[in-house]
Structure formats: C-alpha cells, structure tokens
C-alpha cells in the first residue's frame, strides 16, 4: 500500500509509516549480492569505501564523535546491505553514530555525495544526531540515550498487532545501559515476547568520560540479557560474516539480542580505544594518516 508522506516544515511529518510503511531498507540495486569469493571482495571494498567516506565527511566538517561511528560502521553496513529486507525497520538508539548511518545510507544510494558535504553545516538535514523527519529513511530522531529500545518495542508491538511481517533492529551503545529507561524497555520486550525487536549492542567499552567498567560496571551484559530471558549472540562486531550470520535468522521464538564486541575508533590505529576520539575532530596530518590506514585495510 502506498505510503502517505507529508512534511511539516517546522516540526516534521507525524506518522509517516501508515500501514506497512517501511524505512531504511536496502535498495536492491545497491545490495551486495555476488557469489562467495567475489562477495568477500565486494564486502571488503564496500566497508573500505564507507570508512574512507566517513573519515572524509567528519574531517571536512570538522566534526569529532568518530570513535563511536567507527565502532558501529561495520554493523550498520552489514545490517543494511545484507540483513534487512523491505519489511524491516531500523532505529539508531546511539544517535551519536549519525555519521555512520548517513554514510550507510549514502552507500545504499539514499543520500547523495553533495548531501554528505552538508554534514554539521548550517541549513543541513544531516545533523549531529538524527533529526525528526529530516530524512525519510530515519524513523526517529535520537541522540538522547535510552529511547531507542522503547521506540523499537512500540514498532514491534505495532507490527504484531497489525499482523505485519518484518523485524525492528535497534543499534544501541553499551553506555546507554546506564539509563534506567533502557531497562524498562528490556523488561517490556522480554515480558511481551517481542521477538521482532532485535537490540544490537555496540560493545566498545568506552563511554562519555571513562570505560564502561570504570563508570558503572555491569559485568557481563550478555549474561544480564540472558537473565531476562533473551537469546543472546555474542559476536565480533567488525566481522561482516559473523554479523550477518547472527542477524540473518528466521524470526526467533523468544526475543534475541546481539552483543557485538567492537573497538572504539576501529580501523584507525591512533583512535582505537582512545577516549578523546569520542569528541575530537582530526587535524590535517591525522586525517592523512587515517586515510592511509583505512586504504590499506
């Protein structure tokens, strides 16, 4: 059924997804669908190209926040290119990974090169954290942590009540498990058995002002999630095949979660596991080095 999309110039569109609407699905023409050997090369090239574009976008706009974008990029690319179908929805709960999401949408042909140049500029749609109804592919404005899982639960429950197919993937940070509202949402997902809702945790181990262990140590998050009755898959969050395998399953009987071990600043040696790359923009020299490293990968 056709989607009705109307934009309010001030505040956005309202319910854009009337009856079976879909957001953030891969354009089939841009998907990676080649056979195995070729596919491996194609996937590697896709991730390399996207990483370079992400670095360039942040550098040209003088923007920091790279660490959490680089930790999330492989997850976002794999999810959108190789997992999600037309009935699936995506919520970026860790809104500070907006750059990686924009680049993922660019890699799908949903955002243009010219638009990426506007990242963080005045009069832009590409805000530091996704803006409400600025980009049709982005279902919800996020940026304040602890909202995405609840929003995803509402989408998942809505799908169930409507009898609609598809899943709702929610990319979360590990830091946002400090938020009480995240636990409220986990209880809700578990209690209602919302198997359509798939939280994916970007477990990079660094949060705003310290490591997750130093700030509010949760011990093993995967075990905590299992304690709520979720089926948990722990993977290397930078291995595209592992990500795809963990997420490309039939709708499970009980809710599942994917705990993806990642590296903040992944792929750029001087950024990896360094707190400052949650915030700082790159100098010209740093950018040159980052590009060299990203090209070699």
């Amino acid at each position, binding site marked *: 059924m056709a989607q009705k999309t109307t934009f*309010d110039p*001030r*505040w*956005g*569109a*309202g*319910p*854009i*997804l*009337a*009856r079976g*609407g879909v957001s953030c699905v891969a354009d089939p023409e841009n998907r990676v669908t080649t056979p195995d050997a070729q596919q491996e090369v194609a996937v590697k090239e896709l991730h390399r190209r996207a990483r370079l574009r992400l670095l360039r976008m942040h550098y040209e706009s003088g923007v920091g926040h790279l660490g959490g974008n680089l930790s999330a990029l492989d997850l976002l690319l794999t999810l959108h290119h190789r997992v999600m179908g037309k009935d699936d929805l995506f919520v970026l709960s860790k809104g500070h990974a907006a750059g990686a999401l924009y680049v993922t949408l660019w890699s799908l042909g949903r955002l243009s090169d010219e638009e990426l140049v506007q990242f963080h500029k005045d009069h832009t749609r590409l805000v530091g954290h996704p803006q*409400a*109804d600025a980009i049709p592919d982005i*279902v*919800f*404005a*996020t*940026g*304040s942590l*602890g*909202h995405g*899982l*609840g*929003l*995803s*639960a*509402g*989408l*998942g*429950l*809505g*799908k169930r*009540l*409507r009898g*609609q197919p598809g899943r709702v993937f929610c990319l979360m940070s590990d830091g946002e498990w400090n938020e*009480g*509202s995240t636990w*409220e*949402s986990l*209880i*809700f997902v578990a*209690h209602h058995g919302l198997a359509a809702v798939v939280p994916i945790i970007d477990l990079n181990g660094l949060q705003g002002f310290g490591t997750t262990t130093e700030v509010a140590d949760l011990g093993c998050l995967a075990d905590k999630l299992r304690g709520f009755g979720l089926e948990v898959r722990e993977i290397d969050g930078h291995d595209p095949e592992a990500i795809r395998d963990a997420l490309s399953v039939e709708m499970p009987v009980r809710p599942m979660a994917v705990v993806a071990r990642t590296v903040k600043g992944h792929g750029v040696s001087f950024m990896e596991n360094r707190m400052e790359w949650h915030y700082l923009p790159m100098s010209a020299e740093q950018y040159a080095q980052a590009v060299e490293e990203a090209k070699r990968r």
Partner: protein
Amino acid sequence: MRTILAAALVRRCEDKDFAFLTGDLGFMALEPVRAAAGARFINAGVAEQNMVSVAAGMARLGFRPWVYSIAPFIYARAFEQIRNDVCFHKLPVFLVGNGGGYAYGVMGATHHALQDYGALLGLPNLKVYVPAFAADVPVAAERIARAGGPAYFRLGSDETPKNFVLPAYASWRRLLVGGGPTLIIVGPLAGGILGAAMQRPTEIRPTLWVLSELPVLADEIPAALVEDIQRSGHLVVVEEHVAEGGAGQALAYALLLRGAAPQHFSHRHALGYPSGFYGSQNYHRKECGLDPQSILALTEKP
C-alpha cells in the same frame, strides 16, 4: 471524570488504530477499556518513560494510542520521551493525566501536578485539554482524537452545580453574566465557584468564563470575552497551577498582543504548600485562595 473517559474510549475501540497504555493504574475505572480493547490494551507496568516511547513507536505505525497515568507521573517522569519521541515527530499520542492540580489531596506533593501544563506547553505541536465538567470529557476526547496531534488531557473532579444548564463543550465558554469583574477559570475549579456565584445578586457577581484548551493564542480569544474585559475593567484569572507558565501569564501576554490589556488584572493560582502542612484538595485550594468564598471575596471587593 476518568470513568466517563473510559466509557467514551470503549466506544472508540472499534477504530482499529485505537490503543490504550496504562502505567499500571486504573483499578476500578479502566476495566471496561481493557475488556473492549483486548490486545490493544497494554499495561506497560510502572515504567512511564518506556510507555511513552512504546506509544510513539506504535503511533509511527499508524496507531493512535491513549497513554494513561496519574498526572504527575505522566508529564514529569516521561518528559523527555514526550518531547523527543512524541512532540518532535508530531505523533498522535494522547496523554491522559488523572488528577491535575491538588486533586490527589492528602496523598501528598509527589502526587500533585501543579506545573504540568506549564511544563508541557513549551513543547512543539502539543495541545492541552482541561475539561471543566464531566459532560465535557467525551466531547473533548473526540476533539483530541480528531486533532490527531500530541495532546495532554488533564482530568479532575466534576463539580457541576445542580440545576445548571451547561453549554456544550468549547475551548472558551461564558457560563454566567454579572455586573462584577470578568473571571476566567481553568478547568474543574470552575464548578464550585460557578455554584457559589450563581447564588449572588446579578449586579455584583462576576461574568464567568471557563477555559478548557491551551495554549492561549491572542487571535483565538473570543471577541465577546475581550468586550467583557473592557466593559468590566477588571480581569481575574483563576487556575489550579502555579503562576509560572500558567494560563494567567499566558492570558496577560495574549491580551497585550491583542491590544486589549485590562485596566486591572488579578491572578489566583496554586502556591505550593505555604503552611508546610497537607490536606485534601479543598484544604490546599483554600490555602491558596482558590476556594469559592475567597474568589468571590476578591471579585466583590469594592
């Protein structure tokens, strides 16, 4: 008012987009909604933040959820979810806050909502509905559903005077004409004051208006109200909400914009807990000068 709302919502259950979420409250009131709505009635537990986010997610798929708790728990606890998830996206999520103002009386300050609509009215796209009488509730609910944007429905207790023929629900209604000042009352507080004013001689009683929808916009103030204010020369605004962000401040501002500032302006509003002691809703109203006798003493003073 909430049992009347429940009955009104039962009639809405036929709409496939209807959904109802409660924060684990509604015993002896919401059972009919639960029975009629089936799976679309969701007890979200004692977790208001998640409840509002879930409602926003459902609204994105075309549902039009009503979200219920007592007033302070819905507007204050889940404020950021209301702002980010609902209002930023202009979604049809209808928040129902039972017991606005001091309605929960001796339950204490944590259960009162004295800053609710002031806090919410700064949010984009949100409209506030404060029905004054039980009979208003179904009509206001219909208007909320029809408007289809974020809404906060502030419920209280019905105090409709006996033998009073109530005009149909509207955002502005003139309930009584008199020779005294022009009195504007927000929501259910109007009932008791109306009942007392009706007993007074016409020449000294106030001209009484009730206001049920916020924000107050300058160009939506009825011409008849502006005439009453100009004629009487004294405007008194009464509300069970603190002055800051309340309807009194909004009206003063709107009338200035309209070039219709009253000669004299008085504002009676919630003062919190000036004595440091607690009691029933009427106890707190009296302490703030919001009881009918205090209001009439103000409007009838020479």
